[in-house]
């Protein structure tokens, strides 16, 4: 199974090259891969219908408990077949739709990467592996949505989709890791049997919310739904693929997959059902306001995703059955409708439903495919959409507690679906022929094959529901509900309340369709919704982030070196000061009497010189004062037994002063630049820092944990290192490595001085 999952990535590597080789037929050739995968995984149907699962596992990062483990049960298999099946059609379609596009080769690669990521996602057993593929779908969809990358709108939409889904992805990652901690394993197949344990865990609520955040953002649930319609910037085959069967269903897949582990609690039911219901209604209402074919379909997809979430939230056996059946039906007709919309757009150059009409003569096959899909979406028998809708009603009607509001909401959404089906599947083909930017012809075969096959399969499944019901959908339902159950799919349920509801739906839907323009006008008066809608929050959030970032950066990275220094000094004081203060009373001071007079004088001299350096208005004065400080320090070395130090200090100080004079002799006097207040503040900070240093020295000079190691040097300097000047012996022998570093520093300094003085690129250029 692993090669099957990864084959898409491998194919992505060669797709571009293949396209260069075979410009005309590359799409057909590449489509062989998903077609092969479809056949390969069809072979699993029998095994899984018999109640078995297929699993493989390879160690990936065992240290972290990450395995490349895959696991196919009914739920995975349903998704896998949709992904590979629709993937085949989409690849063929792309070859026609983007014919002649200079970057078609890259497009194939991205689609293949996307497909492989989806396959990995739905087959993954290990939670981290699942997450890896999850993120890969976000990433490849970013590249696909932004495929038309020269337009700013496409870039914006791609980024929006990526940010929203990645935000949820990060929550998901945290949630999965916590789930692993709570359940003691990262393998989903193991966790499935540990639902009790997880639900009783104190971290259950945070885990649930984190994972739901991931699922809801990915599946465009309210209030994260706004990215999906914007993602219609993508070329139509991408929209068809990502937004009918695959990417946006990943969140639904996750909910279904984790239902046995996390579901069944009150909090699950309220949150998931609530969000699903809100999404269903918001999506349906917003769909009515659109006139762009693809945007209508996009909002109706949002609504459909809401329906799926809603029923997974209910979690009753009937609800789960309904959700799974609806999922399949929706994937088939929505994929077909998107592809039809693309074909219409491709042939006419228009996507506005008000400007399209009467295309059935020019595009009979496309019209037939669109009609089939629309009938299924409208839920008319004998199409598969009808069965799905009936089951939704049944489950809603049968739900305890909230049957009435729930059923009415679902009926309302379904009515709008009927209208949407009319607008997208019938409207463009019926009525008066309109003039369009391009003169319409029937699309080429690669463009009508996909929608036709999808539309026909909706019809076929509607006529023979039992075949697919028993072998494919039953195992899926079992996987979601976590218990065995049987599914008897039939087209005709007899005369019962749901049939009545269907009739009402159809009538209402027809009414909405007829009155759609009036409704749209009414809705456009409510234009303000977009002002407070979540898309607005998104941009507000980004703007706010920018403002915050700008303010913070201006404050911190101000460009003023003295502020940097102040902050650093203040940090050191703020950290070390309190700690030092907490050490207790002042350290015992040594007696002052032992300090000799000349030592007092020396100290005074150093301090005086430092003061002069600060106060001096002339540069030379300041430099001379610095020299005096240096000589004073050298005298300290003389007094306390360090002749080598003193000698070096004297020479270095002299040389430094000479260098200072060489560099500065021609510069003017200091100007007093800071105000008195600033100087007082700086003085306060500086004195505090000095006081801190003094205190630490007083503390540490009274403390001696251990005898020093220097006795060794005195002992061995002469006999082993052949030198009487111990300091020198340390420098060239005991610690010669320090000296090696030291002379390297000197060498580099010399190179630096030389280069700075001799190499002046800007000036050279201006000459």
């Amino acid at each position, binding site marked *: 199974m692993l090669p099957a999952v990864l084959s898409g990535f491998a194919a992505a590597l060669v797709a571009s090259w293949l396209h260069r080789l075979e410009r005309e037929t590359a799409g057909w050739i590449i489509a062989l891969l998903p077609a092969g995968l479809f056949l390969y995984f069809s072979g699993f149907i029998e095994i899984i219908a018999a109640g078995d699962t297929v699993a493989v596992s390879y160690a990936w990062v065992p240290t972290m408990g990450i395995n490349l483990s895959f696991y196919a049960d009914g739920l995975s298999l349903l998704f896998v077949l949709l992904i590979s099946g629709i993937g085949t059609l989409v690849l063929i379609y792309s070859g026609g739709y983007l014919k002649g596009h200079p970057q078609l080769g890259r497009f194939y690669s991205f689609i293949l990467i996307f497909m492989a990521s989806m396959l990995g996602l739905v087959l993954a057993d290990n939670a981290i592996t699942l997450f890896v593929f999850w993120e890969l779908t976000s990433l490849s969809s970013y590249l696909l949505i932004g495929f038309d990358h020269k337009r700013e709108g496409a870039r914006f939409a791609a980024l929006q989709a990526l940010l929203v889904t990645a935000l949820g992805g990060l929550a998901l990652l945290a949630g999965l890791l916590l789930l692993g901690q709570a359940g003691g394993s990262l393998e989903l197949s193991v966790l499935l049997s540990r639902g009790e344990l997880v639900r009783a865990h104190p971290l259950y609520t945070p885990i649930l919310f984190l994972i739901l955040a991931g699922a809801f953002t990915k599946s465009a649930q309210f209030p994260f739904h706004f990215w999906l319609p914007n993602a219609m910037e993508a070329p139509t085959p991408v929209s068809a693929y990502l937004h009918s069967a695959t990417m946006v269903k990943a969140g639904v897949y996750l909910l279904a997959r984790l239902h046995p582990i996390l579901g069944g609690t009150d909090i699950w039911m309220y949150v998931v059902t609530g969000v699903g219901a809100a999404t269903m209604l918001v999506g349906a209402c917003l769909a009515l306001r659109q006139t762009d074919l693809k945007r209508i379909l996009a909002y109706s997809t949002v609504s459909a995703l809401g329906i799926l979430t809603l029923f997974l939230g209910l979690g009753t056996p009937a609800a789960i059955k309904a959700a799974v059946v609806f999922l399949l039906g929706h994937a088939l007709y929505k994929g077909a409708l998107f592809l039809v919309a693309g074909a219409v757009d491709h042939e006419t150059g228009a996507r506005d439903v008000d400007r399209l009409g009467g295309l059935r003569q020019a595009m009979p096959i496309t019209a037939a495919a669109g009609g089939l899909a629309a009938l299924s979406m409208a839920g008319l028998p004998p199409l598969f959409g009808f069965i799905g809708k009936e089951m939704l009603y049944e489950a809603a009607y049968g739900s305890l507690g909230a049957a009435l509001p729930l059923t009415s909401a679902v009926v309302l959404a379904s009515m709008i679906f009927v209208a949407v089906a009319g607008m997208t599947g019938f409207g463009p083909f019926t009525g008066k022929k309109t003039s369009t930017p391009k003169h319409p012809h029937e699309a080429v075969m690669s463009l009508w094959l996909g929608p036709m096959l999808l539309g026909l399969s909706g019809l076929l499944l509607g006529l023979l529901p039992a075949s697919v019901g028993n072998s494919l959908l039953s195992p899926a339902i079992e996987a979601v509900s976590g218990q065995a159950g049987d599914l008897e799919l039939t087209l005709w349920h007899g005369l019962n309340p749901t049939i009545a509801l269907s009739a009402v739906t159809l009538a209402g839907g027809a009414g909405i369709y007829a009155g759609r323009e009036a409704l749209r006008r009414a809705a456009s008066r409510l234009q303000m919704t977009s002002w407070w809608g979540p898309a607005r929050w998104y941009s507000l959030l980004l703007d706010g982030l*920018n403002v915050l970032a700008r303010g913070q950066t201006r404050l911190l990275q101000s460009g003023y070196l003295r502020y940097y220094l102040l902050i*650093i000094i203040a940090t050191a004081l703020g950290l070390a000061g309190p700690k030092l203060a907490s050490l207790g009373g002042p350290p015992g001071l040594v007696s002052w009497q032992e300090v000799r007079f000349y030592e007092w004088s020396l100290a005074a001299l150093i301090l005086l010189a430092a003061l002069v350096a600060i106060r001096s208005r002339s540069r030379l004065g300041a430099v001379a004062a610095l020299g005096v400080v240096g000589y004073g320090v050298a005298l300290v070395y003389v007094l306390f037994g360090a002749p080598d130090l003193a000698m070096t200090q004297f020479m270095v100080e002299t040389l430094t002063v000479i260098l200072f004079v060489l560099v500065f002799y021609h510069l003017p006097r200091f100007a007093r630049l800071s105000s008195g207040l600033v100087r007082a503040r700086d003085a306060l900070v500086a004195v505090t820092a000095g006081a801190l240093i003094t205190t630490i020295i007083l503390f540490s000079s009274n403390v001696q944990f251990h005898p020093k190691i220097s006795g060794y040097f005195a002992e061995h300097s002469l006999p082993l290192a052949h030198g009487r000047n111990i300091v020198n012996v340390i420098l060239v022998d005991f610690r010669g490595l*320090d000296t090696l570093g030291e002379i390297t520093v000197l060498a580099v300094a010399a190179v630096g001085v030389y*280069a700075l003085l001799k190499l002046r690129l800007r000036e050279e250029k201006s000459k």
Partner: protein
Amino acid sequence: MKILLILPPLIPLTAAALSLLSWRWRSIQRVLAVAGTAGLLGTALALLDQVWRKGIQATQVGGWPAPFGITLVADLFSAIMVVLAGLTGLAVAVYSLASMDARREEHGYYPLMHTLLMGVCGAFLTGDLFNLYVWFEVMLMASFVLLALGGERAQMEGAIKYVTLNLISSALFLAAVGMLYGAAGTLNMADLARKLSHVAESGLVTTLALLFLVAFGIKAAVFPLFFWLPASYHTPPVAVSAIFAGLLTKVGVYALIRVFTLLFVQDVGFTHTLILVVAGLTMVTGVLGAIVQNEFRRILSFHIISQIGYMIMGLGLFTLPAVAGSVFYIVHHIIVKTNLFLVSGVARRLRGSYELKRLGGLYQACPGLSILFLIPALSLAGMPPLSGFFAKLSLVRAGLEGEQYAIVAAALGVSLLTLLSMTKIWAEAFWKEETKREPKQEAAIEPEPRASWSLLLWPIATLAALTVAMGVAAEPVFTLATRAAEQLMNPADYIRAVLGEGP
């Protein structure tokens, strides 16, 4: 083969000395640049192999027994860092051949690069606190000159801030070493570790630890001590930026990890919690700084800060998996960040600017380069299955296990913002249509030598391949990082390797 311990600083030094002798012959210096760094990388790999097989290695320089002489020690962490220094050095050396202008080459660029590597390797390998100071200075001095080499105005302004703030750090470090020696009477880190482990006056030790935290914190560019980095990293030629970005702050991080696992573990509840808070703030401020920027290298520079937060997050959590996460993160980051800077240089050469508004059209014109940018950029943002994902994953996981939810939230949030600013570069420099070039722009700031594209692209491609490999085959790197973390968290082995079975 104890000689392997001294070679990492010695090879660059020899190469530097020979380059100084052949001052007038640029071609010899160029050969030495590649030979020296390749030799360094080879030695480093041999050293890593030896430490992996035989455990922590130590040698007493000058033959004087520890703790009296200077000890060089290589545990796995050190060895890994030396390998990374060699790798970065080689990549940048090859890249420099094609990107460095002749005038800078004539004025000491290559010897400076060697001494920089020498200082870095010395810092990674030394077992002596004062010797660490010396290596820091070697590295700093070389970086000062590299930063200023060329004498352009922006370079001068950046260099002044860089030099001043780093010298403050050095002065603080030196003072702290002096006081520590005054109190504990030794400089050998293993010896210090042993002596500090049973000390009554832990308050004083903690105060000194805080001084070290500030001193190394400045070098590592953590909040709120990072100012020198964004002020300077975008001013020198790109090869210099790249090696700085890869290595310099990481030496600070290395030092922090070293002293806060080996020496200052008396009051973990205080010091390491403090480090954790600093880590969080560093991540957030860094990434916010990046969001504001509109210039390729400035964005990358602020991200360095942000990533430093991740590296010390593991130290702050102070558990075995967390420290392993830090080690993994460092490995990942050095490779990726160096590479991104190298890519920015190619973009600059193609379009004549680092300003995003003047870039564009690279996706259409150079699909290969686009991939070579996307790999490190997405890795930086922690996208699977690249190295950055596993780096982030291990830290997040360690944070969750340690129930430090705030830092985990920060780490995840910051990775989203990192993604935001990487996609900003992508959208502006690659996706966007090429902007019309102004004629003025053609007059590039540096004189461009004749392009030799393969010299530019090979290092980038190799580093990108490593990024992918570290993700797809994360297990070996993880095992390595975990073993390294085990050594760090159990200093007894380190102390024994240096001092033998002493009291």
